[in-house]
């Protein structure tokens, strides 16, 4: 069974031999469209970008990607959550049109409560400092310090080796440098 491609070639060559230019041109154009397009090797665009010195644009960083922003927002939300405890009193105060003295009393009470919470937090911080000092005392011994440093070094080397093992097959060896 003759293929469509063979028919196209026959039609084209016969038109050329018969000096039928329009028919020959149409047949040749059809023949070219029947062929597979010529594609550049995979990764061509990436290599062009590398040669042009263009690195991929990083995705625009979200405002909330910053640790400080997230930490600040969290503290604000916590403060809002905590202040809800004083909301009824405050609303009552405003609703009842209390005197300035009452308002000052309310806010002073709030401040005292907050300072007590701060004191508790500082106590926790003191506890953590004590634990840290207790852990740091053995490190004053050279032998212990050396053992710790050796462990860190070994673990770092092991991590680098493991990383190299994992990423080896993904290296872009086909990129022109």
């Amino acid at each position, binding site marked *: 069974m003759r*293929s469509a*491609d*063979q028919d196209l*070639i*026959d039609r*084209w*060559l*016969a038109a*050329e*031999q018969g000096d039928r*230019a329009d028919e*020959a*041109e149409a047949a*040749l*154009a059809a*023949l*070219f469209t*029947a*062929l*597979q*397009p*010529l*594609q*550049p*090797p995979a990764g*061509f*665009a990436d*290599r*062009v*970008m590398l*040669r*042009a010195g*263009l*690195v*991929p*644009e990083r995705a625009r960083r979200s405002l909330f990607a910053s640790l400080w922003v997230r930490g600040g927002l969290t503290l604000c939300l916590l403060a809002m959550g905590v202040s809800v405890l004083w909301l009824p009193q405050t609303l009552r105060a405003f609703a009842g049109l209390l005197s300035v003295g009452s308002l000052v009393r309310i806010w002073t009470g709030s401040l005292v409560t907050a300072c007590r919470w701060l004191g508790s937090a500082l106590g926790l911080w003191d506890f953590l400092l004590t634990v840290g000092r207790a852990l740091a005392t053995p490190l004053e011994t050279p032998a212990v310090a050396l053992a710790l440093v050796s462990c860190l070094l070994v673990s770092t080397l092991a991590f680098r080796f493991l990383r190299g093992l994992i990423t080896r097959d993904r290296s872009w060896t086909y990129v*022109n440098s």
Partner: protein
Amino acid sequence: MLTDAELVARALKGHQEAFRQIVVRFERPVYSLVARMLQDPATAEDLAQEVFLKAFRRLDTYDPQRKLSSWLFKIAHNTTIDYLRRRTPDTVPLEAEKEDGGGGLAAVLADGSSENPATAAERRDMGRALEQAIGRLRPEYRESVVMFYVEGASYQEICEVTGLPLGTVKTNLHRARKELAQHMTELGWAPRETRDARVS
């Protein structure tokens, strides 16, 4: 989807992704033109990269009134012609002329994705023969054939890229077609009537 002019405008403002989109959009036609002019896929990739690098450096000279493809083809034309002039005759790759047709440009074409092996093999042979015939054309004929028949460029676009008058482009295409037919016949692809006559 952004137009070519919009992509260029964004690239000129420093949007690297816009330039990358330009490369992705035109990598196939540029590579196709360069590869068929050179008949050497390996060198073609280097030169095609060079074309886009030149385009990147001269992006501010692009006239949005013209087609971006024509502008890129013009750069590809100049780059390829410069390379061919620098190349000494004895370094011309002969891969397109290999006996088994297994190397060079022809081997890149006509993959085996057709519906059956016989059709795939015939298409592969035909593609190989057609590429060999194109490879035998002189560079200016080859370029016009690729631009007109493969990339679908108009006569006017070919004139802009090659810098030749319209009459010359049409004459080149006409002569190139005749030569292609002659080469295909020499490669054994004569029309059925001629083959039947030979057999009888």
